[in-house]
């Protein structure tokens, strides 16, 4: 088990190192930030001074080494736009994003898992048909539309929840339902498929002829066997919510890392882009690592062979 964790950690570090190279080059491919940062009346001398100050005049490999050395100390440079440490800016934005992703995942799991299980237990029933319809809708409706509809009905027509902003628990309702509904659709389908397969497995048949009560067969045996791919998917989905909830953050003016990243790319604010991508990646990999560990806990074949 310890060896398993060490291998995983080592692989994670290598991946992160490769990612630093990639994001460093990609950020620079967006173009020269100088014209966006300096006022239009700035002279060439002014522009060169800016480039010198931020080290942009040095060869790219030198810039990379400096970036890497500083990044290891948690210093991702000063934002061109806000003149503040990029790391601090990203950390401030990652809190709201993590909270929204967490609440959304809870909503998605509370909807998707039971729906998938019920559909698998009653194949061909009206419940199964309803779950199929729900999942199709959930996957087909884009979040920007469902988000706007929720705002229209639950914050304008019936002013129950705030349409935007960050702060109290009431602010979470609409964005978390928007994201949770979307994510719950695929979770329900995956749970359905995996539960169906688990319920057909030989050991479930064997437990049936041994007279093991159905509740034990479903909850103890079938569900745990079905949960292995579901856990992987939940981790992936959580990672996607962390990095990819840009649209929903826009619709609900959520001060998260997705919004910040889009702004930083538009402004060619390299330090913020680099810090935001690296932080999201670190979180993503931590989730993956936790999924792998959970996998080893759930499946003895992973950790013992």
């Amino acid at each position, binding site marked *: 088990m310890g060896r398993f964790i060490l291998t995983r950690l080592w692989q994670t570090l290598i991946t992160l190192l490769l990612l630093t190279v990639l994001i460093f080059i990609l950020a620079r491919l967006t173009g020269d930030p100088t014209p966006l940062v300096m006022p239009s009346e700035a002279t060439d001398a002014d522009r060169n001074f800016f480039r010198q100050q931020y080290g942009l005049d040095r060869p790219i490999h030198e810039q990379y080494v400096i970036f890497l050395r500083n990044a290891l100390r948690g210093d991702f440079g000063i934002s061109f736009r806000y003149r503040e440490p990029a790391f601090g800016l990203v950390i401030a934005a990652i809190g709201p994003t993590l909270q929204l992703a967490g609440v959304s995942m809870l909503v998605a799991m509370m909807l998707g898992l039971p729906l998938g299980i019920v559909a698998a237990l009653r194949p061909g029933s009206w419940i199964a048909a309803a779950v199929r319809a729900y999942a199709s809708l959930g996957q087909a409706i884009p979040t920007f539309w469902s988000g706007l509809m929720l705002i229209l009905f639950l914050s304008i027509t019936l002013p129950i929840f705030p349409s935007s902003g960050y702060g109290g628990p009431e602010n979470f309702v609409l964005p978390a339902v928007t994201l949770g509904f979307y994510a719950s659709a695929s979770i329900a389908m995956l749970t359905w498929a995996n539960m169906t397969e688990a319920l057909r*497995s*030989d050991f479930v048949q064997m437990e049936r002829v041994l007279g*093991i009560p159905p509740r034990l067969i479903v909850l103890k045996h079938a569900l745990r066997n079905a949960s292995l791919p579901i856990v992987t998917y939940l981790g992936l989905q959580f990672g996607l919510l962390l990095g990819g909830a840009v649209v929903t953050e826009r619709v609900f003016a959520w001060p998260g890392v997705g919004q910040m990243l889009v702004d930083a790319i538009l402004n060619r604010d390299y330090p913020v882009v680099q810090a935001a991508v690296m932080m999201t990646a670190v979180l993503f990999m931590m989730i993956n690592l936790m999924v792998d560990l959970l996998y080893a806990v759930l499946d003895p074949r992973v950790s013992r062979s």
Partner: protein
Amino acid sequence: MEPLLAIRGLNVRFGPSERPVPAVADVDLDVAPQEIVGIAGESGSGKSTLCGAIMRTLVRTARVSGEVMFSGRSLLTLNDGEMARLRGRELSMVLQNPMTSLDPLYTIGNQVEEVLRERRRDGAGLRPGGAIEVLRRVHLTAPELRVRQYPHQLSGGMRQRVLVGMATAAAPKLLIADEPTTALDASIQDEILILFRELRETAGSAVIIVTHDLSAIRRLSDRVVVMYAGRIVEEGPTGEVFRAPRHPYTRALLASLPRIEGDEVHLEPIPGQVPDLASLPPGCAFAARCPVAKDICRGQRPPESVVADRHRLFCWRAEETA
């Protein structure tokens, strides 16, 4: 003696009612207490469906009719809850594939204890060592170690022992074993068969062993039932049927066993194929492959002929095959 299991006129049909597929047709079968009955036949002969009908584990779309009396109860009329209470306690089963019939995520001990807890009324599951006792009874080596191991750490033969132990933990009156040796190495098959015979003595169980492996039936069972295309074609005491088979299909089946004479291995495959159950001929289903078939065989279903005490067959040529 009053039979433990008495099946009368059992029919199992699948598919649409306009074009039914009769997987089991007009089966009558008795099993006495502590008797070992072998059911033989090729794949698709209906032997597994017959077991499913007795255990009531067939898919919901299967239409089962007839009567299955098991120690005074009519199994086909019990509700699901009553049937579930009988399984594992009164009648039990070992499924075809030992490699996949144990939950890979729980230890052997956990799964055996679960059966003891749920199925035994004497609280054996709560007693420490209850699982070890069960494994010792089926001669699993180092049971103290096995209870802590997971299924993937055990061989197929060991897993089969665990499954047999679980199925007989509550000393059921009837144990059905569906192809119990097919997935195992030849060297282990014998040990598992011996185990069944032992369980009849220790647990007092009758055993129905379903297999296409005739040698397993010959070594184990008191009586043999040969099925073809969903119907019983011959039934009788094992020794008598193997010594003097009467039905042409039984003869063909026995002739298809590899025989070693001198340096040569003789093997006579049965010509033709198992018929499609959805479009069976009006007469004997074996007529198309039968070397002695007459016109009447193709036109009309053969009646039952009792040729000796407890030896019966369904064949128009029953007189001539003696």
